[in-house]
């Protein structure tokens, strides 16, 4: 085989490229980092059970969205009997999850799923704080 050297070099390059995602994370020290979520300071109970929220928070948010915007329903009766105002900024963000970067983004980045663009419109309370409210 005349091209033996070329073929082996090509194979090595291929191996390097194909294992790049793994090797990059190893070298940059991005793996084996435990997920740290900044949990809410005061409230211990979410509007729905934690396990449910972990799997289906978007389902709840979509229901909230359509209830509030399209059906003019303003309150949500939670599983524990409490009543919450249906407001992403007012209830979710202001009361509990005050930092998108330290809560939502942490889990989403870990899973490699882009955080939905809710905060493009729904105001992150941190923005108000920064402008000196």
């Amino acid at each position: 085989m005349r091209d033996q050297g070329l073929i082996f070099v090509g194979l090595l390059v291929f191996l390097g490229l194909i294992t790049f995602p793994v090797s990059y994370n190893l070298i940059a020290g991005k793996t084996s980092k435990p997920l740290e979520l900044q949990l809410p300071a005061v409230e211990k109970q979410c509007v729905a059970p934690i396990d449910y929220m972990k799997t289906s928070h978007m389902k709840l948010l979509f229901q909230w969205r359509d209830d509030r915007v399209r059906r003019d329903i303003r309150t949500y009766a939670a599983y524990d009997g409490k009543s919450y105002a249906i407001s992403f900024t007012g209830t979710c963000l202001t009361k509990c999850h005050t930092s998108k970067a330290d809560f939502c983004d942490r889990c989403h980045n870990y899973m490699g799923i882009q955080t939905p663009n809710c905060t493009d419109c729904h105001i992150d309370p941190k923005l108000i704080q920064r402008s000196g409210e």
Partner: protein
Amino acid sequence: MIISRKRFLQVTGVSLLVAAGEKLMGAFSGVVPSEAPAPALTARRWAMVVDLPKCYRKEGCIKCIEACHAAHNVPKFIDHALEVKWIWKDSFENVFPSQENHYLAATFKDKPALAFCNHCDNPPCVRVCPTQATWKREDGIVMMDWHRCIGCRYCMAACPYGSRSFNWTNPRSNIAKLDPDFPTRTKGVVEKCTFCEERLGKGKLPACVEACPEKAMAFGDLDDSHSQVRELLGSRYSIRRKPELGTQPEIFYLV
């Protein structure tokens, strides 16, 4: 104890039903927000009456516009092409082209008139929206769903009054002060006055109505024969914008 997810959701669902049932029976136990919310304002047909002579008493006043745009995070663009406005002033002749009159009384000639969404009873914008991102509520408000809007701007072409604005670019950088009680919109969606439906739910009148120093704007239920709007319409002559189009606008102007 280990239970399956399905069982857990079943339990949650039943609990929710029980909780809702309790609420229905008036047994309200739980977190109450800092102040007890005022009962929501409801109506069968919301309408507004603008008293133009009262409005003219304060020349150059734009308190209604400022209040509305502040309460709803409406961006301010200097470039007329990119303008976003929910309520504005234009000349009487431009707002009421159907009242074409070379000899218009001095009371109105060259005077401004308020223009905003008419919340028509027969809205062309609702007819043409391909995704029902704008629709007419049962209480008469022509509402917007900014999650669903695809930004086709067909509603803007359909509106005979130029009431709608489009976010040609990201509005955030052009908002002086963010009001946390109302979301902003994103680029690529159409927006307009929504009769402050978020305030109505908290028992408050629209921002413009509250802000007017001359109390020139009246807001109420047309189906309630004793409402302020009905009394005003019953006692004084009123005009509407382009009534010949059959859109049945619900903004009445007293002259």
